[in-house]
């Protein structure tokens, strides 16, 4: 069983090929190369090195967001197009869960974050491998929630360093930061998570943005104001 995993949901690019229980090849970078330029060549090169033809792939795993809207869409579009035209299953996994999957054995809460600007983050909170929360929220609210739980917390993700001072200030000695080696998503981790989750139909596989667009939010507000919900 050959899996191809793709994560383009944030700045990092992660591609991996897993055959049965073996990671055959993996690509990971945090270079600021547009995913549209980088993702397909990385997939092409990795498969070539592994001497695997596209039609030999048995399943696709893709990170479905949240993250950069455009980034998420590139990975999901590539993944669903491959799955549809190769007629193979596709499993889409939360990008936050993929990041948190870098720290499977931490005794406590694992919290993955991506910066979402204006003091907001996309945050995933996991305990014993279970999802506690995945949402777009203010960092202040997230830290308050983690502080109230009283448990030790491990932060994962390349944006942790942007907010580290503020995190440390609230959670003090309860909090740890995953080191650089565990800060980028791994598509092998993505595939391992995908193995545990349900496949979706390629046509209906779409990103999970965790946020409506600004235009839609404003429109909904207008609708409410005008009294017809």
């Amino acid at each position, binding site marked *: 069983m050959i899996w191809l995993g793709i994560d383009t949901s944030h700045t990092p690019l992660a591609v991996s090929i897993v055959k049965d229980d073996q990671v055959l090849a993996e690509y990971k970078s945090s270079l600021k190369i547009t995913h549209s330029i980088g993702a397909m060549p990385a*997939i092409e090169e990795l498969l070539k090195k592994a001497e695997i033809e596209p039609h030999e792939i048995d399943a696709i795993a893709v990170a479905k967001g949240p993250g950069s809207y455009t980034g998420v*869409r590139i990975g999901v579009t590539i993944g669903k197009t491959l799955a549809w035209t190769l007629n193979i299953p596709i499993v889409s996994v939360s990008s936050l869960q993929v990041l948190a999957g870098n720290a499977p054995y931490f005794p406590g809460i694992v919290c993955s974050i991506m910066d979402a600007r204006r003091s907001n983050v996309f945050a995933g909170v996991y305990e014993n491998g279970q999802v506690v929360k995945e949402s777009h929220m203010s960092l202040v609210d997230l830290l308050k929630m983690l502080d109230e739980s009283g448990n030790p917390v491990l932060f994962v993700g390349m944006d942790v360093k942007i907010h580290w001072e503020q995190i440390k200030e609230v959670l003090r000695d309860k909090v740890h930061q995953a080191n650089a080696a565990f800060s980028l998503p791994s598509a092998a981790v993505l595939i391992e998570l995908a193995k545990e989750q349900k496949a979706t139909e390629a046509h209906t596989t779409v990103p999970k943005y965790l946020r409506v667009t*600004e235009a839609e939010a404003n429109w909904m507000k207008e609708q409410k104001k005008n009294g017809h919900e």
Partner: protein
Amino acid sequence: MKKDQYILGIETSCDETAASIVKNGHEIISNVVSSQIESHKRFGGVVPEVASRHHVEQITIVIEEALNQANMTPKDLDAVAVTEGPGLVGALLIGINAAKAFAFANGLPLVGVHHIAGHIYANALVQPMEFPLLALVVSGGHTELVLMKEDGQFELIGETRDDAAGEAYDKVARVLNLPYPGGPHIDRLANESDGAVPFPRAWLEEGSYDFSFSGLKSAVINYQHNAEQRGEEINPNHLAAGFQQSVIEVLTTKTLRAAREFNVKQVIAAGGVAANKGLRKVLEETFEKENIPFYVPPISLCTDNAAMIAAAGNSKFSAGKTGDMSMNGRPGLELNSWN
């Protein structure tokens, strides 16, 4: 005998998700367009992020439908052509990445197509293009006169310096409180009108093939504003007709002058505004008198579609110009020759 060439075209540059299969650059085998216009209407215009979200939802469904309607499989195709730019970057990226993944999975060559080249080649789906050819491209984002001395060669001889014609139509429509997109509504009001407000024509410097519509747009807005100040009702038909007459006269006069100067064998109109009934009529009459064949594709091929991308892609692919897996969306892409 030369083997038949089948191109899959994909277009997602704005608010239509489209896929089509075209044989030998001129015969439409299938043509699928999924429009998002209903979703964008509530915002009064295309919202880029909303457009991108819809494209991801539709893209594989639309490509599959194009294959199904053609009763073909990827193995029957010779290449995949996709709009590379210009357009909304987030929207372009969906078509491009789907095209790349599809081409890669099926071992097919990939061809990046300029959206305006697509609009021009829509004409190849109706009758053979003959060169030198002059194309008047008028759409929501473009107003250009393009001279083609040969297949695959483009020379930009004039373009708008401010608003595109379609943009001016949409803005004037807003003044009249018409629904989005306003072009067809202005067209209808103008055609039903029994009079016209005299609005200025922007000729620019002598000999220029460039266009300008922002002055006209302002004149329309001022006219409406002044009427309002005086508490007068404006006649929307007269306003629409006056606006449309100004646009048509400038477009037609400049196109005619260019057609004469460059001694073209064919004049074509392309783009969404080429669907305008008034414009089509005046251009037809003008070039009939001039004895130069004038063509404009049916309305379904004037607005965004993927058959036109496949048609242009066929010419570019035949010229040996293919792209690779690093193809990116290029919102400001220039119209370059491939021959």
